[in-house]
């Protein structure tokens, strides 16, 4: 791969699962020095804004309310303590691995209000849309979602158009692309000249995608290639997108580190507002500044590697995280800390 590039190139892996997979498989030790891989905004927890996290935390103290959440949200600190701490004080906070499980909680006990913290990108949004339709069909009155879903392609455009970021290639997310297909990324090579390759999560797939983008850069022929054809069809999953289209409309959304991005959030359509926790419970998302010194925003833009943050490994560790990039298992700070914090291991052959 080193021979494919005649100059240093900067590639962003968009997806948090890629970030962890690259570290877990020790691939960084194999990269040639002229390929710089930076982590992007592909961890759903990491891009959730401070105000959104605070809104989620405010639910935990409510009487007769169960908060159903994906596990990674449990330890993210807001302005107030974490959901895990709220749980230790007696709040009913349940970890679920699917939106469907959250709906089941509501159906099993109709005396309690169940609020599902709906975070994630195109990967999880179809499942949320589907349970909203189910809840509607069942005329379920005790189920709501705090809808924080976001769309990946607009965030990539924000990064691509940012002169400070200076990216030459994206390792595009595998799971998201299963839903979106390849079309939503075409603007990246066409408008911004950025090389793109969708990758799976095995070592060979990631390496093949890096070779692909290096080749595109060398040949000055950027395009959207898929190295994950066993899972990603070029047209994506039309059924999933149709369900999303019934339930959600695109709206502006606030991303941690990236700010407000036009049409990058999936908001509930008007006919489903009775399932919207913000509407029903009268919550507002009050944007608050990130914790002092926290550079998660710069990390998410690929402007710095996590150890460049002054808090990294000092006051901010996985045991006592300050920013969300250190909390989530898919966060790049957590990955750096887990796999690299004390330097790499030098093996003798």
């Amino acid at each position: 791969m080193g021979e494919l590039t005649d100059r240093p190139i900067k590639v962003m892996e968009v997806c948090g699962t890629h970030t962890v997979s690259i570290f877990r498989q020790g691939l960084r030790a194999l990269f040639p020095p002229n390929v710089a891989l930076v982590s992007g905004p592909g961890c759903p927890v990491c891009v959730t804004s401070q105000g959104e996290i605070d809104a989620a935390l405010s639910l935990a103290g409510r009487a007769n309310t169960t908060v159903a959440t994906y596990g990674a949200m449990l330890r993210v600190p807001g302005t107030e303590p974490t959901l895990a701490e709220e749980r230790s004080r007696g709040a009913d906070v349940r970890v679920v691995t699917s939106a469907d499980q959250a709906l089941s909680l509501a159906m099993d006990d109709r005396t309690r209000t169940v609020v599902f913290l709906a975070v994630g990108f195109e990967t999880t949004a179809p499942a949320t849309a589907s349970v909203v339709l189910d809840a509607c069909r069942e005329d379920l009155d005790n189920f709501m979602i705090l809808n924080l879903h976001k769309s990946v392609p607009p965030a990539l455009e924000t990064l691509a158009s940012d002169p400070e970021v200076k990216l030459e290639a994206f390792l595009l997310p595998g799971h998201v692309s299963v839903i979106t297909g390849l079309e939503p990324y075409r603007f990246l090579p066409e408008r911004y000249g950025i090389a793109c390759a969708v990758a799976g999560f095995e070592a060979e797939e990631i390496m093949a995608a890096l070779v692909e983008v290096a080749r595109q850069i060398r040949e000055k022929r950027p395009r959207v290639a898929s190295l994950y054809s066993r899972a990603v069809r070029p047209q994506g999953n039309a059924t999933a997108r149709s369900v999303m289209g019934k339930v959600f409309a695109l709206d502006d959304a606030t991303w941690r580190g990236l700010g407000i991005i036009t049409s990058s959030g999936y908001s509930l359509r008007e006919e489903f507002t009775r399932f919207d926790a913000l509407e029903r419970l009268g919550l507002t998302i009050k944007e608050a500044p990130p914790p002092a010194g926290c550079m998660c925003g710069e990390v998410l833009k690929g402007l710095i590697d996590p150890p460049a943050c002054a808090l990294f490994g000092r006051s901010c560790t996985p045991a006592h995280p300050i920013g969300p990039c250190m909390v989530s298992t898919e966060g790049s700070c957590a990955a750096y800390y887990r796999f690299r914090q004390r330097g790499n291991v030098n093996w003798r052959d």
Partner: protein
Amino acid sequence: MERLSIGHGAGGSLTQELISLITGRFDGSPLADGEDCAILPGGYAMTIDGYTVSPLSFDGGDIGKLSVCGSTNDLSVRGVKPLYMALGVIAEEGFPIGELMEYMESAAAVCRSLGVQLVTGDTKVVPRGQADGLFLSTCCIGRVNRKDQLGALNMRPGDTIIITCPPGLHGATIAARRYGLKVRGLSSDCAALWPLLENILPVNGLRCMRDCTRGGLATVLCEWSERAGLGIEIDETLVPWNEAALSVCDILGFEPLHMAGEGCAAVAVAEEEAQETVGLLRKHFLGKSASVIGRVTEEHPGLVGIRTRSGGTRLVDKPVGELLPRIC
């Protein structure tokens, strides 16, 4: 005031912090050496453990079997033959007596197979809602069966690291049940290790052994490397992985090396006796997939490295807090 979290009981670095806080309140004893059980004067050894598993019954075992295996294994890995047991039962009001007796029979069967006598105990019933069905505690006492004490401080550069069975089977089984995954062929490795480990006690170069419970193989190796001030290197391709356990980890985003086993031990032994040790382990059905997975080094003291399938290298760390499934 900071409160306890589930992570404080998950076996990783938060658990270590909590244990330090607790033991710091006591005067301390030279016998409390941080190993799985304490070796007492007169050649006896002692350990205690609490069991709060949910679900109470799972593929490959239940809380009764687990409670005897867990404590007797803590003795076995130090070369101690388990002899006597105390059992504490904390059950919730309304818990079915028939179900309780099933777990007691399950515990008793393991005691019978090991020749362990139940010599004392305690039972409490707490109001409904104050316990998650049933909690068990077991305290075991046994007799040291080896002249040299086994422990991490015995390790020397060049020693070989062996694992007795695929790591993470118990943790993956429980995680699959908890998160509603149906995985064919996945079963906890819950087992009493004494009959297996007894076979290798005569090996002169045996340094230390540890059952890979909460925190998994990763935590055992990290603790060994930190205590001994040595490095440990393992090779991913040498680990006898279980594909079903790996698939659960893959789906949920868990590190397989962090998943608990309940019938799986890591063994450190002098290099020249490594093959003999593997051979002895493989003679017993619990050790049929025993494998050399790595070695102890002078380099990178206090750190554990893994060479991955793809030929890369990375650090192995202890889990931090509760293992939480990923989002996508």
